């Protein structure tokens, strides 16, 4: 069967098997391998992407069900060469180790901050509780989301010293940027 899905802002039309899972469509047909898979039973959350603006586990959606809908994946978080504050937060707070759960975690975190710009620790833990991470023990993921919330708040009410953290860091320089300057541990 044929589907047309808007993926990261671009409409794509493909011939698919009706039984195909959305995670396989995104990874295998479109080559967007930032979305991962890690289980057979909808438990791990490494496959989380947005369907019509809501985080879903894409291993539990048929591609056919996404026909005519909008999908957003981790590849779309970076805009115009600038990392999303959530991405910067994960880097600054060491919110990732192997990186396998990270795209799914970041997609959920982005959605959370869009709907609750100042989530406390327990709200963040609740929000990511449908997703597993085997490396970080979650602490630094929580800190990463708090980092992003803090910096987004500062960007909304710019204070001279703080605003640079979000808007001013070009993506390329970020990975080797000075840790202490931006990454005070919570």
């Amino acid at each position, binding site marked *: 069967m044929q589907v047309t899905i808007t993926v990261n802002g671009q409409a794509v039309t493909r011939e698919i*098997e009706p039984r195909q899972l959305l995670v396989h469509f995104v990874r295998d047909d479109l080559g967007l391998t930032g979305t991962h898979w890690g289980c057979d039973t909808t438990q791990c959350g490494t496959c989380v992407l947005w369907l019509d603006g809501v985080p879903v586990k894409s291993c539990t959606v048929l591609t056919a069900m996404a026909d005519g809908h909008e999908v957003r994946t981790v590849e779309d978080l970076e805009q115009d060469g600038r990392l999303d504050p959530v991405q910067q937060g994960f880097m600054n707070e060491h919110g990732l*180790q192997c*990186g396998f759960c990270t795209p799914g975690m970041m997609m959920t975190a982005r959605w959370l901050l869009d709907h609750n710009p100042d989530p406390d620790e327990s709200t963040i833990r609740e929000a990511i*509780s449908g997703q597993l991470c085997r490396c970080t023990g979650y602490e630094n*993921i929580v800190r990463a989301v708090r980092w992003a919330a803090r910096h987004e708040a500062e960007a909304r009410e710019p204070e001279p010293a703080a605003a640079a953290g979000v808007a001013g860091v070009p993506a390329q320089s970020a990975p*080797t940027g000075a840790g202490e300057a931006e990454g005070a541990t919570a």
Partner: protein
Amino acid sequence: MTTTASPAESTGAQGAPGTTAQRMSPGGNPMGFGRMLRKEDARFLRGQGHYLDDITMPGMLHAAILRSPFAHARIRSIDTSEAEAHPNVRAVITGATLEGLKLAWMPTLSMDVQAVLATDKVRFQGQEVAFVVADDKYAARDALELIDVDYEELPPVVDARRALDPDAPVIRDDIEGKTDNHIFDWEAGDSVLTDQVFAAADVVVTQDLLYPRVHPAPMETCGSIASMDKVTGKLTVYSTTQAPHAHRTVYALVAGIPEHKIQIISPDIGGGFGGKVGIYPGYVLAVVGSIVTGKPVKWVEDRSENLMSTAFARDYHMKGEIAATRDGKITGLRVDVLADHGAFNGTAQPTKFPAGFFHIFTGSYDLQAAHCKVTGVYTNKAPGGVAYACSFRVTEAVYLVERMVDLLAGELGMDPAELRMKNLIRPEQFPYTTKTGWEYDSGDYPRALQKAMEIAGYDELRREQAEKRERGEYMGIGLSFFTEGVGAGPRKHMDILGLGMADGCELRVHPTGKAQLRLSVQTQGQGHETTFAQIVAHEVGIPPEDIEVIHGDTDNTPFGLGTYGSRSTPVSGAAAAVVSRRVRDKARLIAAAALECSPDDLEWEQGRWQVKGDPEKGKTIAEIAMLSHGNLELPEGVEGHLDASVVYDPPNLTYPFGAYICVVDVDPGTGQVKVRRFIALDDCGPRINPMIVEGQVHGGLADGVGMALMQAIAFDPDGNNLGGSFMDYLLPTALECPSWETGETVTPSPHHPLGVKGVGESATVGSPPAVVNAVMDALAPFGVKHADMPLTPAQVWRAIQGRPMRTDLAVT
């Protein structure tokens, strides 16, 4: 809350000249040790990681494995005709096919053999029976349904404690003359002396303890892509492996392919934790599939396959005994272990040590005598043994001693912290030789325990607990103090399959002063690309952003045994330091030639060689690199270019340690345990990148909470795996984990060139007993002394009722 050692302590044995104030690189990174954001994050954050299943090759086919539904059955026949007739199927391979190729059996890392595909019998549920190669993964799965296997069911051996019964079915009748399920007996320590110490003791406490079977369950499952080029004879294998070089040698031995024609590439790995050390049948089958079809073949297991067939850990049934004087001096420790290794002994461990490093079980205590005996048995379960961040079974050892010490404290009516403090090895006793032969390199244990207790507010917690008990609330405080032995290991003592555990390392400084470091170890999330660049920056003064760390490709890196057992920093980290010093020493000779002075007149300062007393005159490493590649006349015996290589053979293991305190609240009505606080004080020597070290500790703590409270793979009487999906095998989420509180002391290793010790597994090893001790402490008013992990609500509730269950068997 973090306590930090004073700078004087933390620079103790960094060894390099010129380690004065911290300098920053042009990229804003520390020129050496210090918090540095990770280089590898750039790709992971953008969804640009390159994990196994992200890789495709032209013409690549997809494979799937048919697995046994039975734990023990004879295969009468296999009919593959319908599967072969499927229009998208390219090959169906069975044990019979492999027998023709002499590939039906492969050696395990413990000198046993394992069936690649079953020929005669299946010996565990989930065992590999047939392999289908098809155009796409959906078709490969479809074809599995079309294979018809006729099984004759046999009685399985499920309970390890019955495996040696005279009437137990013999699992390994493939081994000639085998009439029982016994694998090995192994012992360490002095049994006669230990008996004497026990006979003379005022108090002896005995307890049966089970460390249940668990699975590391990294978020990425295992997989492999094999491509055999028939023209060149070159085999390229992309594989989720923590030990690419060792795998290359094993492929050569198994498949008879010349080793120089094999390239193993380990791409980004989505977590390993020991589960990606071994070679699995699927990897070998992908190679066979590629040889048979002439195309690249990808095989990736699904989660159920991962949980049912790959590397298990633990499964130790331990009978522990501890002896002490009435006033709380521990005198002896004795343990008898029954080790369930499953159907094939696939344990990855140094050859001389069939029980891994379990004989480090005397832990952190100074006692008079100790003895352990370990018996390994076959059962109808997936092959396993070591694996899962256990430092070669130090996990089981620490659990044993830390539970026994707590039980002794209960018996003596002593506070467990006081009992530990009284028995810890004293700082002046290092280097300390244990009663089973380990030589601990360095430590200050009382200081670590003291600091952890200060962070926790231990006395205040005990007061709170007493008040709560008055009100009928059940709060528990649990301690553990662990010593690990990591960094395997000295070649003369340690090898795997005859391969000594030394690591190669190469440093190449390019003419413009940028460098490449080639490592044999392979990161699975530990941040090697950052940490190892920091080591070189520390030693040679090249900014870490100018150092590319190359790893995970056997054609482009020197030989070494890989990353597991927390060995990367102790072994390859030392190799990186030594190779950097070789470059620095060579640079000195070249600088002296350029400056027309004697090398003795130069001193190493701030990343450059300069003339003593005339610091204006000097050469940076970048300048020396260019000179070394140019036409400067070099002194006698000095070759051009600025490269070096080394093979590092560690003189001893390193011995990190730590003091952990866990605080729990238990609801006696439901049996629910809530971990309220967890304080982890770790001493792993100086920290190259404290951010990464803390991250390693956090991850291990979550593992510890998971194993203590949730994770276990049990089997029903028919041998059905009861933990075959994430619906049944429960892993901790953000809700089960508290906000970790960490601390540190810094005691350098005297024999490591950087003074550092490994840390990757410390928290996984050290935390489970702290959690269990806390829950038992909470349940003390009910008279509960012990219940085996995992302390699920059902288990806690049953413990309160006085009938805790065996967590390795299904409860009917």
